[in-house]
């Protein structure tokens, strides 16, 4: 029974944690507003996006065939996990939000570049990232695939 006693404060702390992860109203992944995007990365920045979370990696992408720029929000820790460069061509799927001033932001769910696809969220918009430099965990096999 003793182990249950120490679980109580731990569970209480966990129950309190979500309050720290609240996000700005109206800024969430809306599966009904999914769009495809394609273009060239012109700028890469780290920006605070949500209260109480680490800053996010954000790409400014010049859309193919247009002069318009769109902001693509990637993920927090992904900054260390994968290397993307200015000038790279990317395409992907994400949820589009338009600000009152007409600025367009896409919360990316899937990003394709260099012939590979990175899944940032599942098809309901739930985050798939974890880690930092260590990336995936679990039993190690040989090789890297």
């Amino acid at each position, binding site marked *: 029974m003793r182990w249950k006693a120490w679980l109580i404060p731990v569970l209480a702390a966990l129950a309190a944690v979500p309050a720290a992860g609240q996000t700005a109203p109206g800024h969430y992944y809306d599966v009904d507003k999914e769009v495809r995007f394609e273009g060239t990365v012109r700028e890469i920045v780290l920006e605070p996006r949500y209260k109480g979370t680490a800053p996010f990696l954000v790409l400014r992408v010049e859309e193919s065939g247009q002069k318009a720029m769109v902001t693509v929000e990637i993920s927090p820790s992904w900054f*260390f996990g994968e*290397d993307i460069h200015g000038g790279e061509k990317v395409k992907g799927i994400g*949820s589009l939000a338009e600000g009152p001033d007409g600025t367009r932001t896409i919360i990316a769910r899937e990003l394709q570049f260099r012939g590979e696809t990175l899944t940032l969220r599942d*098809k309901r918009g739930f985050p798939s990232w974890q880690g930092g430099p260590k990336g995936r965990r679990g039993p190690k096999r040989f090789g890297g695939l």
Partner: protein
Amino acid sequence: MIIRKMRHIVLLVLVAAVSAQGATVTLTFHQHATRNLFQTNAAVAEQISAFSLAFNQDISALSLFANVGYSAFHQTGGLSYFAADLGLDHLVPAGAKSAFYFAAEGAGAFYGREYEAFSTLGGSLTGAFKTYLAPSSILRVQWQGMYASYADSLFNFLSHAASLSIDKYFPTRTTLKADAGYGYKYFLHPYVPVTADPLPEGGAVVMGAGGGGWGSGTGAGSGSGSGWGGERYEGGFGFIPRAGEGGAGIGHVSVSVLVAQGIGDVVGLSASAMRQWIVSGENPFMSIEEFYLVPNPSSDAFSWDGLQLTGRITLDLPWSVEIKTGYTYSDKTYPGVESMGLDGLPLGIVRNDVRHLFEARLEKSFRFFSLFLAYSHIDNASTDPLFHWSSGYVMGGFQWNLPARRKGGLS
């Protein structure tokens, strides 16, 4: 006892997963089949079922991560093990183009009685810095320190590794990357005392620490011997330590280069070469062994000197299908480890393995989960005949992101 403790950890992670809003929770299941679990010329077939549950939650600017897993070995039950890790990481921006990353992690793995020597508790600290020197060029510096304590103290170690990398992306969709690294591993109890018993013909019988390792040796501060091929770890035969005293640390430096090329939207190619040199010390064990999926403490990135060449092709196909194939050639020498004949006599040469590894992986993503199937084939030629082997490995499984409370998850 261990199982009972692990139940509590699993319960804690599950409760945390259910209660946490905005958390990332991932459930994975992998099924493996192999004809050579211990990677020797005496092939032992095995099937392994591996489950894991990973949890990631932002707490203000910190991120809490936890992972619990269980790998069930169906034939060699003693190798079945629980593994768990728990840690915090923190990303600190330094301007809009740079960031520091810090992480602290505790980890443990718990085996059954037959392989209890591998049970371990430890921790690691990681620090990294990444910056865009220009939009098309990235500089990264990373350091990691580790400590691990094993049930058999022979394996206890402190280690650290540092690396520096720089890359450049060109408009031709070519990426060039260069990397330099340094690592040092210090074994806290690498040798057992020299036996006072008379030497038998050809060497010494050495009783191992922590429950009876034994093998043949050639005297204080050095030794030789083939491994036991994994199976004989069972029943109390531990690993083969060397006798006497000597340098307990092994250090290396490495350099690597990588070229990656995108072709259209579908194909990604990459080729890399790595050269590693042991610059101080040697392996303190008389044998280096690798088991499939089991982190054998005698074998890791610190144990070899040599060359590794890798080529990969990735196909990003319609309907969320991805195919990856790869080939790796490696030529590794293990300083301090002498090759032995199958008759148990030393061959007078340091062990060297030349390996050809072929890999292929097919992955299909669905709305709620992804499925994959992978195959690997290895041809391993070694100067120690026990480790001259060839075998195939099949793996399949799924990964499922468990639903959190709010539609759309975090953000």
